[in-house]
């Protein structure tokens, strides 16, 4: 955590910045002999992947499950977060005795390429300059992220994953895994996701990026070098995005029109309403743990995702002859990645003859449902993972 001397007045942010090069995680380093080819052209070398593991790899190496995180997630799926001190983002689902049972499975979670918690991303030090990459890092794609993850899985000596599981952008990675490495994935669980990012979702991302870039402290992406931080811009981006992760009914249930610590309207632009206060808090908390340029890179990767486009425009061709078994899950109130998006994937999988389960879970909590305690979702995850483990003799 020594290379962020300009940010001493932002201790939380400095802690997050420190994670970029020297994370509180295991790190796999890939040198000049193992460059990462990028969709944007050229290669990334050297690069590193920060990852957490839970549980023990069995002798047959057949019980490994890879978790893929979403846009604002990281590798700290089932442990206390080193920056925020909060529980892991998927402790509802992952842990001892949980549906993804770390007493029986070897669970791997890695930070995505372009991220900011220890895998090479725009806040990492560019070895060519000794400065943070900033916008000098090539734009990365979901396929690049998955290519990097496959190198990590090689590094861990695992030939075939029992399962790859993830929601939202994590679900995109799961689909990409199944398409790129069908022989390395026994079971795939893409949750609350889509095979391509919709125009509406690209539009939301663009609002977020513009908010970041409109912040004068962004400094053309060189804020780390210049000792500033586009906190307001990133915070607004997060506030806008957070609305899309919830639903009208869950916002109403949580906040209604209730006022924040006051008896009446102040006739000002203070956060009179609880929902305003909540969003401001969400924005602030996010800025403490997330890098603004990473936000640009990772949202861009999602925007570029269109799996069918890589297969002649026919999604079914992405899964042709696949032996992987799939379980898709959507949530009724998710308007960001709808049931129709999941169904389109199911149709393609049916057309390709793959074995597929699909369940729609009733929930009014919107897109974020996959991160929350939804008993039916947990039961389905457990059933699907256990059946896969039985089928490969890993139970």
């Amino acid at each position, binding site marked *: 955590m020594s290379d962020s001397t300009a940010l001493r007045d932002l201790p939380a942010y400095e802690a997050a910045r420190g994670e970029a090069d020297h994370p509180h995680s295991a790190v796999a380093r890939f040198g000049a002999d193992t460059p990462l080819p990028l969709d944007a052209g050229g290669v990334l070398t050297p690069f590193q992947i920060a990852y957490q593991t839970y549980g023990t790899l069995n002798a047959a190496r057949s019980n490994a499950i890879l978790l893929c995180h979403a846009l604002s997630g990281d590798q700290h799926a089932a442990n206390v977060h080193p920056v925020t001190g909060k529980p892991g983002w998927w402790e509802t689902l992952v842990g001892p005795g949980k549906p993804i049972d770390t007493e029986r499975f070897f669970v791997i979670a890695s930070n995505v390429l372009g991220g900011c918690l220890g895998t090479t991303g725009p806040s990492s030090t560019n070895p060519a300059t000794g400065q943070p990459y900033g916008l000098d890092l090539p734009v990365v794609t979901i396929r690049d992220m998955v290519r990097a993850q496959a190198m990590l899985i090689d590094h861990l000596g695992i030939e075939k994953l029992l399962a790859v599981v993830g929601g939202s952008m994590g679900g995109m990675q799961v689909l990409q895994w199944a398409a790129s490495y069908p022989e390395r994935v026994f079971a795939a669980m893409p949750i609350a996701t889509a095979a391509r990012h919709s125009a509406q979702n690209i539009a939301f991302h663009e609002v977020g990026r513009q908010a970041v870039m409109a912040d004068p402290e962004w400094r053309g992406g060189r804020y780390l070098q210049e000792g500033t931080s586009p906190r307001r811009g990133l915070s607004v981006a997060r506030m806008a995005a957070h609305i899309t992760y919830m639903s009208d009914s869950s916002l109403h249930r949580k906040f209604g029109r209730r006022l924040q610590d006051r008896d009446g309207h102040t006739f000002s632009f203070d956060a009179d309403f609880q929902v305003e206060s909540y969003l401001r808090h969400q924005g602030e908390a996010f800025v403490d743990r997330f890098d603004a340029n990473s936000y640009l890179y990772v949202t861009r990767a999602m925007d570029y995702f269109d799996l069918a486009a890589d297969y002649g425009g026919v999604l079914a061709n992405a899964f042709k002859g696949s032996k992987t*078994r799939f379980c898709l899950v959507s949530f009724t109130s998710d308007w960001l990645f709808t049931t129709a998006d999941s169904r389109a994937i199911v149709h393609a999988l*049916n*057309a390709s003859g793959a074995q597929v389960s699909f*369940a*729609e879970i009733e929930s009014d909590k919107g897109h974020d449902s996959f991160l929350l305690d939804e008993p039916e979702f947990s*039961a389905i995850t457990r059933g699907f993972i256990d*059946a896969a483990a039985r089928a490969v003799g890993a139970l």
Partner: protein
Amino acid sequence: MTPRDLTMSEAARVAGARVDLLLIAEMVRPGSRVLDVGSGDGELLELLATTRGCDARGIELSREGVNAGVARGLPIIQGDADVDLADYPDNSFDYVILSQTIQATRRPKWVLEQMLRVGTHAIVSFPNFGFWRMRLDLLLNGRMPSTENLPYSWHDTPNIHFCTIRDFVALVEEVGAQIDRAAALNGYGHPVRFNLPWAVWNLLGEQAVFLLSRKG
């Protein structure tokens, strides 16, 4: 029906499986690819996977059924047979099964045609509205029959397209399919064992199971 089949039926009946499902399972070649349309929570899928070694998958409309089945590790898709069968390629399954569901579809003829397109064989089981007790009920009481298996009242039932065995045979002819096998179960759940005319089956069979294939 061969004696060996019946032995298996009796054995499995003790284990608790429904007789109509056992009849269906016996019609399915071991190790084949099966799509069960209206699979509920997957009772038949499990039976086919465990006793016949089939690659058996389901479509089910009710969220509860799907979620219960998937939680047991069964491959079931939440979907509507009246629409979703169109998404499956030709000949993608050896058997497409519609068990106690045809009477609840909006377009029974279309569904049957799709089944015979998607599968090499189709198996359909349904409650027979020509069963003598149904006829007697309507004759004596003058009200729509309601039985132990079909307890719904007429205005609150998912079963919108009831038919008799003879009606179904007529539909099979209309879609140009052939009947490879047929079985009826009487009011006690026993197979109507002898090769009797349809009119008799139509009277004695409380449920019927048909194995169909495309003509030619």
